[in-house]
C-alpha cells in the first residue's frame, strides 16, 4: 500500500515534469524539467528493487548527460528560439497519433496477464557487478559487451571533440578570433 502511494507520487512527478518538457518554451526549462523527471524515475527504480540502477540513473542521466545538455544550451545563446513556433501543423496530427498509439499499446498491455514475481533478485551493486563481470559462466557473458561499450564511449568522445572543435585556420575560427 505504501509502495503504491510512493509510486503514485513519483509517477505524478515524472509525468508532470515530462509534460513540462513538452510545454516549456525555453530549452533550459525543458532540461530542468527533464532532470526532475529523471530523478523521480530513479526513485521508481529504487522502489522496484533496483537501487543500483537508480543511482546510475541519477549519476549518468540526471548528472552527466543533462548537465552536458544544459551546458550546451547555455553556451549556444541563440538557442532560445522566439521566432520558431512551439508547435506546427505536423504536431497537430502527431500528438493525436501518439496518443492513439499509446492507447493501443496500453490496451494490449492491460489485457496481458503480467504480475510481479516474488522470487526476483534485488539489483544490488554486488549482484549487478557479478552478472556483468562473471566470466566463469558459460560464454563470455556481458563482459565483452561491456568492453565494447567502453570503446563506444571513447569513440563517441573522440567524435564529439572532432565535430565540435573549431577548425584551426578556417575562416570561422579567424572570425571568432577577431571578435576576441
Amino acid at each position: 500500500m505504501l509502495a503504491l502511494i510512493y509510486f503514485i507520487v513519483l509517477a505524478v512527478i515524472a509525468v508532470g515534469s515530462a509534460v513540462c518538457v513538452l510545454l516549456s518554451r525555453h530549452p533550459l526549462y525543458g532540461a530542468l524539467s527533464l532532470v526532475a523527471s529523471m530523478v523521480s524515475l530513479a526513485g521508481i527504480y529504487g522502489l522496484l528493487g533496483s537501487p543500483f540502477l537508480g543511482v546510475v540513473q541519477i549519476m549518468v542521466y540526471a548528472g552527466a548527460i543533462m548537465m552536458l545538455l544544459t551546458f550546451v544550451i547555455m553556451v549556444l545563446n541563440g538557442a532560445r528560439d522566439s521566432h520558431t513556433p512551439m508547435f506546427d501543423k505536423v504536431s497537430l496530427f502527431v500528438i493525436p497519433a501518439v496518443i492513439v498509439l499509446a492507447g493501443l499499446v496500453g490496451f494490449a498491455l492491460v489485457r496481458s496477464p503480467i504480475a510481479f514475481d516474488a522470487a526476483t533478485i534485488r539489483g544490488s551493486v554486488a549482484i549487478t557487478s557479478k552478472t556483468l563481470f562473471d566470466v566463469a559462466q558459460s560464454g563470455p557473458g556481458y563482459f565483452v559487451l561491456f568492453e565494447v561499450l567502453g570503446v563506444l564511449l571513447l569513440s563517441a568522445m573522440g567524435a564529439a571533440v572532432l565535430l565540435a572543435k573549431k577548425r584551426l585556420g578556417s575562416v570561422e575560427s579567424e572570425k571568432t578570433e577577431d571578435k576576441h
Partner: protein
Amino acid sequence: MELQAIYVQILALVIFAIGLMVAVSRRNVFFVLMGVELALNAVNLSFVGFAKTLPAEASIVGQVVPLFSIAVAAAEACVGLAMVILIFRNRESVDADTYSNMKG
C-alpha cells in the same frame, strides 16, 4: 491495493508517449534531443518493470540491460550535442526543420 506490474508499464508508456511527442512535434533541436532521452528513460523503466515479473536469475538480465542503454544514451547525447554545435555554427538556427541538407 498493491503496486501492480501493469502500473509501471503504463507509467513507462505514458512517459514514452510524451517523449515521442516532444521529439517529433517540437522544432527546437534541443527539445528533440530531450524527447529522445525521455523516451529512452521510459524504455529503461519498462525493462526494469518487466524484469521484476521474472523469477530469480532471469530477472537480473532486465536490470543489466538498462545499464547498457544508459551508456549508449550517453554516447548518443555526446555526439548529438556535438553535431548540434557544429550545425548551429553553420546555420545560426536551432530549428530542426532547417537542417535539410541531406535530402534525397
